[in-house]
């Protein structure tokens, strides 16, 4: 294969010698330069005035849009955070208010209960005093009756024993003496 390369290279060299390198044929240079200038010039003009600004604008637009969207997202997040703080604040306030209302209600109820209790206690005390009075009276009357009964009994016993009615004062003294004993 290598020999083929040499043969072909030799042929190429021969061809080059006979016709000359086409690249070095200066008669074609003017045409190449003119058409290079035209095609490259047209391409440069189209690229710089139309296509590249368009692509650049599209890229820029996307970059702006992404930045915008990120800003918007940050703004939304900030708003959400604000709303959350406001919500938490409102919640705390409501809780405090509820506690206040509860405390107030409890106090009211307590006061009412206290008042009712006082009323009840007072009425109980009045009734108890009345009852004690009655008891005391009953006791007094009961004592007098017992004395009366004792006097009567004493008189009856003395009459039955000595057939003589004792004087009231004597009987009283005797009953009192017995009661003391």
């Amino acid at each position, binding site marked *: 294969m290598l020999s083929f390369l040499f043969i072909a290279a030799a042929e190429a060299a021969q061809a080059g010698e006979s016709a000359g*390198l086409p*690249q070095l044929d200066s008669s074609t240079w003017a045409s190449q330069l003119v058409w290079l200038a035209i095609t490259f010039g*047209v*391409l440069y003009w189209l690229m*710089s005035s139309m*296509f590249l600004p*368009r692509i650049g604008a599209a890229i820029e637009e996307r970059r702006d849009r992404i930045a915008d969207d990120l800003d918007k997202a940050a703004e939304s997040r900030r708003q959400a955070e604000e709303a959350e703080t406001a919500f938490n604040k409102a919640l705390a306030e409501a809780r405090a208010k509820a506690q206040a209302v509860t405390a107030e209600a409890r106090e009211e109820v307590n006061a009412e209960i206290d008042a009712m209790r006082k009323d009840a206690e007072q009425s109980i005390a009045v009734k108890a005093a009345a009852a004690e009075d009655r008891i005391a009276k009953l006791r007094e009357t009961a004592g007098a009756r017992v004395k009366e009964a004792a006097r009567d009994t004493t008189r009856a016993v003395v009459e039955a024993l000595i057939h003589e009615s004792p004087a009231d004062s004597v009987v009283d003294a005797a009953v009192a003496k017995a009661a003391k004993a």
Partner: protein
Amino acid sequence: MIDAAFRSFQAAGPMEQFEILPIVELTFGGLDISFTNSALWMTIGVGLIVAFFYAATRRRTLIPGRTQSIAEILHEFVANLVRDTIGHDGKKFFPYVFTLFIFILVANYVGLLPSIPGAPHELHTFTTTSHIIVTFALAMVTITIVLIYGFAKNGLKFLKLFAPSGLPIWLMPILVPIEIISFLSRPISLGVRLFANMLAGHIILKLFAGFVIALLGAGGFASVLAIAPFLGSVAIFLLEFLVAALQAYVFAILTCIYLSDAAHAAEH
């Protein structure tokens, strides 16, 4: 059929693909400015580029379609290249660098297209960048821009490019001529690099293709051997596919580097 192909190949040496053939004869002031096969392929290349970018930018959408995506990727690629090499001043050179890059890229690639079988010679596929006059002209455009912009921006300080500050005086006589020679050789190396790559690639492709035809024409056992140069030509073609893009990129990036020198000469 193989015989006919063999004979036609024998008639066409590996250099024939570079011949400039007039299609429409034109003269202007005694100069031959005929519309040639070279001009035809420049027009085809530019036509393809324009058609593509027209399609890509006709309807610009926020979410790009396929062609728009490719156009945007190319735009960003060259824009980054210009920004990274030249810096902020590079913006005004972006259209030029982009045009240069896309022109050379497409010229290199359309040159790799197969010719239409049976087409007349002047319509065969032609690589416009395989001619030194074209690549050298493009290189000279770059260097001219560098010179004009360099002097316009930095004035005479542009010459500091050849004598960087902080250089010991005794080194000046050695280094300044070296810098000047290196600057002067820029357009030559820039032009020759692209031209030589295209020339060599296409000659080798043609030679390998020639071996295939020659071996097939020889008949018998030799025809079986034709597979070797055939695979070789496939491999070379793949290499050329890479080289076509690489050389366009190299041309563009060197242009950027030279423009960057012009932009920052005073700071040296």
